[in-house]
């Protein structure tokens, strides 16, 4: 028996075609819901990452303060060692070494600071983009399912009525033909 519609060369009934359409629409809704969830999840993750980054920045500032104090301690030790010729040469060497270590450590913290700022900028920009995406209300795509269901129901009702009408018409024609005979 021939179907009501031809989809990609296949004859199928209205009921089957509209059922497939509704299922495909439902799959789209599921995809949308997954995107809504993932977007919000990413925003919360970014918030956490930015919070951790701020804590890290505070820790780096503390290390910088320690470096600063170490540097002056080493400088004072070097000055004291230079004043007194009797001071052990090895003490002078240690003071100098500590100052150099402090300088090296300070240079590293400056680099870390720059890298953290770059990460912070990237995260902030990513968060802003994601907020732009997530704050667009896409709920109309879900509400459209209700409209689709109403259309499907209307088409099927018309189709049923049309089939019933054709059946009655054919039956009447048959009766008329038998009278004619």
């Amino acid at each position, binding site marked *: 028996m021939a179907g009501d519609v031809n989809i990609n060369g296949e004859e199928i009934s209205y009921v089957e075609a509209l059922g497939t359409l509704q299922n495909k629409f439902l799959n789209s809704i599921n995809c949308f*819901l997954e995107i809504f969830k*993932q977007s*919000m999840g990413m*925003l919360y993750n970014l918030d956490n990452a930015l919070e951790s980054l701020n804590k890290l920045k505070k820790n780096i500032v503390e290390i910088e303060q320690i470096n600063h104090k170490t540097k002056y301690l080493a400088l004072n030790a070097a000055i004291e060692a230079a004043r007194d010729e009797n001071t052990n040469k090895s003490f002078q060497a240690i003071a100098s070494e500590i100052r150099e270590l402090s300088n090296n450590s300070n240079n590293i913290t400056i680099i870390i600071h720059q890298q953290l700022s770059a990460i912070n900028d990237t995260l902030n920009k990513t968060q802003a983009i994601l907020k732009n995406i997530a704050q*667009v209300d896409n*709920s109309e795509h*879900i509400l459209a399912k209700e409209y689709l269901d109403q259309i499907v129901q209307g088409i099927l009702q018309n189709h049923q009525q049309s089939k019933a009408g054709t059946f009655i018409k054919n039956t009447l024609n048959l009766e008329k033909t038998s009278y004619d005979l």
Partner: protein
Amino acid sequence: MIYKHKSDETTLTIILKGSLTFADYGIFGQILDTIAKNKEKQCTIDLEDLEHIDSAGLGMLILCKERFNSNKRILLKNAKGHVGKMLELGKFNEIFDIHFTNN
């Protein structure tokens, strides 16, 4: 949106009021923290006074379910009007334990 919460021996109840939209993601973060800190195994989110929800709000509800899926039962109840329709069209009953009101 505003929210309040109460708990008995078994259930933490979160009551949402107003609109749950993208603008509330900070407040909803507090709700997630509240659920995480509470020991109750069941959490009921009461939506009776929630009048509107957007796509971000739907995302936040699903996120909540998934975040606590391993150790808590998250239940939605009393959704009605626009919110009830959104949950119904989105087949939230396949994601959550859910109780719809009739109106």
